[in-house]
């Protein structure tokens, strides 16, 4: 049986719940992770991921395979995150406690934690679309064209978002970048 995303979506469009469960298991971790990185808040990220997967279910009969399913789902997650950011003020620094720790030597750990905390705070302070462009580029490994597709904008607009985002990060981080590694 064809187990591709598109085949599963065709089955979901006919109300096939087991197909929906398979697709959810496949894409939910990435959806939760992406929402969490954009929102910086675990509870909101879970809500967004749940809402995104429910949209997959409810909109499946209308879905047209014009783009890859993953790109479409990423767009849904990103739009839900940006909507949520528009509605609620950004009051979160808890992401600093959730950063993956590469655990170098014990003496370097405190300095590394401080760098990560500063970076988390700097990313959190970025405007939502700049942050989203950076996360899609570095976390999802997307090209500028793919980011433009997800954000429904032009490639040059994405490049502007990245340039301004990195300028803001440099300003916020000061000399911390040079001390890395």
């Amino acid at each position, binding site marked *: 049986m064809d187990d591709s995303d598109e085949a599963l979506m065709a089955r979901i*469009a*006919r*109300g096939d*719940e087991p197909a*929906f469960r398979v697709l*959810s*298991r496949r894409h*939910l*971790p990435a959806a*939760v*992770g992406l929402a*969490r*990185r954009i929102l910086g808040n*675990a509870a909101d*990220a*879970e809500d967004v*991921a*749940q809402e995104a*997967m*429910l949209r997959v*279910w*409810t*909109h*499946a*009969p*209308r879905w047209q395979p014009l783009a890859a399913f993953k790109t479409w789902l990423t767009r849904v997650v990103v739009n839900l995150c940006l909507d949520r950011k528009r509605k609620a003020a950004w009051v979160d620094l808890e992401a600093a406690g*959730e*950063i*993956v720790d*590469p655990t170098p030597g014990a003496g370097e750990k405190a300095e590394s934690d401080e*760098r*990560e905390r500063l*970076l*988390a705070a700097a*990313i959190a302070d970025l405007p939502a679309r700049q942050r989203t462009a*950076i*996360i899609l*580029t*570095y*976390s999802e490994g997307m*090209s*500028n064209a793919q980011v433009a597709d997800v954000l429904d904008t032009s490639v040059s607009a994405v*490049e502007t978002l*990245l*340039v301004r985002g*990195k*300028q803001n*990060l*440099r300003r916020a981080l000061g000399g911390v*970048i*040079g001390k*890395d*590694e």
Partner: protein
Amino acid sequence: MNREQLQTFLDSHGADPARWPESERAKAERLIASEADARAMFEETKLLDAMLARHTQITQDNDDAVARVTRRLASPLPRQKVPFWRWPTVLLDWEFSPAWPRVAALACCAALGFFIGIAGLDRPFDRLDQSATLMSRDLGSVVFGPQALTGAGP
């Protein structure tokens, strides 16, 4: 390409030359190779890229979050939104393939009922005889009786 343009280029495309557009790559590489300041920009961009890539990795407790969302999705799912142009398809979306034996049985029953009705096998035998006799008598009177208007016999 000058240094300012190189910085914009690096911020737009990152420090990985594999992601650089072909049209600009040679100019950027030439500048990085020839100027110390450009090389410093490139190295700084590499460090920033590494920090961003590490920071945006999936956190370790993602599995717990996924499990929670999966549990929430286990509840009855909402009604799907079917576009109006697909309503006729939905209404006519009969799955014959798994039900063909039942459909065949129904067709056989209908054919059998039609045959029984036509053959008159659904009536009791005594009434069947009467009607057969009546029918044969009527037929005989039509063929052999006198004509209604002229009274002429065969």
